[in-house]
């Protein structure tokens, strides 16, 4: 094939372009198959199934919005959604605040900077299963942190969130923030380093205190980094499954159930595909509404170049 292309190149220019275009199309075939086959057809199929009575296996007995009605009447789903919002908002907020502080403090020309950075970010390299299991052990009521502090003399000290339905979600939250806040630190530190040194000089000349410069001048300039961080964290929030399974298994009771786990449980153990797909579609909706327009604006539309 290459041979013909090289020789024909001298004869007719347009033909060569055509030929080569074909190999570029061939090379893009896997991408096209995945993009359309998985991210359009499969997603569409899931949505279609949410309107059917599918149990263990898919069928096409149309039931309209019945599954959605049932879904929003299921207490486990309601609890999952509430948990997701509580966990998601707190998780993103805590990661942003602690990540920003770590980055700012690291940016103070400190010694051992790379050592600190390595320590702050290493949890992010570990899997959520590992994270969940370690924190489960540390939050063990009789042998864990609670016990150690009580033995030191503070007998009324209580820290065993995982056995208390009211606080279990916060136990998961601590583990998640531990795992992910280093990510924000890394992104923010890169952002801080990218800020023009002139800004600092100007602020110093004007006599603006450092903390005010950070808060009112530097922070607004880091908007793109913040957006990036929020997007990455939010994707993790919607997907949270491994951490829950490893750390609490959704319990005690339903106190740490999450939508992602609801879907998986319904398409596997519970054999209720229709309901599971209705839940999956509900998870898809916010992603579609937020990410869809952004992708279109940033990547699909600008065809000119």
């Amino acid at each position, binding site marked *: 094939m290459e041979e013909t*292309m090289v020789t024909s190149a001298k004869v007719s220019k347009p033909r060569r372009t055509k030929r080569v275009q074909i190999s*570029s*199309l061939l090379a*893009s075939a*896997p*991408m096209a198959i*995945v*993009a*359309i086959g*998985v*991210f359009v057809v*499969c*997603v569409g199929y*899931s949505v279609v199934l949410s309107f059917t009575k599918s149990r263990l296996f898919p069928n096409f007995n149309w039931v309209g919005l019945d599954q959605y009605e049932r879904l929003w009447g299921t207490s486990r789903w309601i609890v999952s959604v509430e948990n997701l919002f509580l966990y998601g908002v707190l998780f993103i907020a805590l990661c942003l605040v602690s990540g920003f502080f770590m980055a700012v*403090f690291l940016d103070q*020309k*400190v010694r051992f*900077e*790379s050592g*600190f*950075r390595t*320590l*702050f*970010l290493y949890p992010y*390299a*570990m*899997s959520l*299963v*590992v994270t969940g*299991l*370690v924190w489960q052990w*540390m939050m063990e009521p009789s*042998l864990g942190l609670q*016990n*150690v502090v009580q033995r030191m003399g503070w007998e009324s000290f209580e820290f065993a969130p995982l056995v208390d339905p009211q606080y279990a979600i916060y136990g998961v939250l601590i583990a998640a923030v*531990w795992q992910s806040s280093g990510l924000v630190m*890394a*992104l923010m530190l*890169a952002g801080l380093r990218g800020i023009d040194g002139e800004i600092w000089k100007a602020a110093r000349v004007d006599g603006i205190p450092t903390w005010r410069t950070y808060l009112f001048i530097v922070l607004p300039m880091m908007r793109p980094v913040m957006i*990036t961080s929020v997007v*990455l964290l939010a994707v993790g929030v919607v997907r949270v*499954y*491994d951490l829950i*399974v*490893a750390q609490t*298994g959704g319990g005690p009771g339903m106190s740490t159930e999450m939508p*992602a786990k609801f879907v*998986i449980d319904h*398409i*596997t153990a519970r054999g209720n595909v229709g309901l599971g797909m209705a839940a*999956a*579609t509900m*998870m898809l909706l916010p*992603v579609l509404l937020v*990410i*869809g327009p952004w*992708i279109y604006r*940033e990547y*699909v539309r600008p*065809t000119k170049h």
Partner: protein
Amino acid sequence: MEQIQLTGPHGPKPKKTTVSRLGVYAFLFSAAVFFCIPLYVMLITSLKGMPEIRLGELFSLPGDPSFAAWVKAWGEACSGVECNGIQTGFWNSVKITIPSVAISIILGSINGYALSFWRFKGSNLLFGLLLFGAFVPFQVVIFPLIIFLREVGLYGSLTGIILIHTIFGMPIMTLLFRNYFSSLPDELFKAARVDGANFWQIFFQIMMPLSIPVTVVAVILQTTGIWNDYLLGLIFAGRENLPMTVQLNNIVATTFGVREYNVNMAATILTALVPLAIYLLSGKYFVRGIAAGAVKG
């Protein structure tokens, strides 16, 4: 790690140790302690015996450190009724990770190259769809994929899980390579075209050698990502090929009588070892991988 020389002659005059300076270090040290505690607890627990653990001294160093729990976690710990330790999971993860990483990077680099230099009608739309795939919750596509793999007889097989990792790795790999190739000067490509090089010649002879740095980032990103995966391995790998993370969770969840926390923690460390080693060795490349998902081209 980065070439930032902070205490050069250009900086402000060395200040005296002020209160605020102390505050900075106090903050950083307490943060460092918070991040270290779980790793420390994991490590010392795994080196203790069960009687010592039952004393409830979570933070005390092991009186008689021993690797017995590690040996047991590796070769004898039970998940369900099988008591072969976590080693089967380790080798399964190796068998899953290596081909998945290789294939997803090869496809991602070809995609990125085609999207950067060989745009065709609809290529932007394809890329948009693929990018959408990077944000779609797995839950929305998992069930149709189960059905599909069952139809073609790959459900619960090594090939099946590799295919799945290739699919889910494609959006981020394509994005990574596309952004990299887009940053290369256009003249490079045009000159090769004028010389009559075709699609594959330019890819293999010019683009591949140039993309070594980004390939390192891709390898790190994919290896840690696939090694740490739990959900996909649980659903698609099948009983015979369960990855290490799934086996770890099974071992910890299996309780016959007493829970052996030292064995659990040893198994946990063993599972974390591979990504941790990659992280420590790769340094700045790891951070670049994180940012890769975010930077737009």
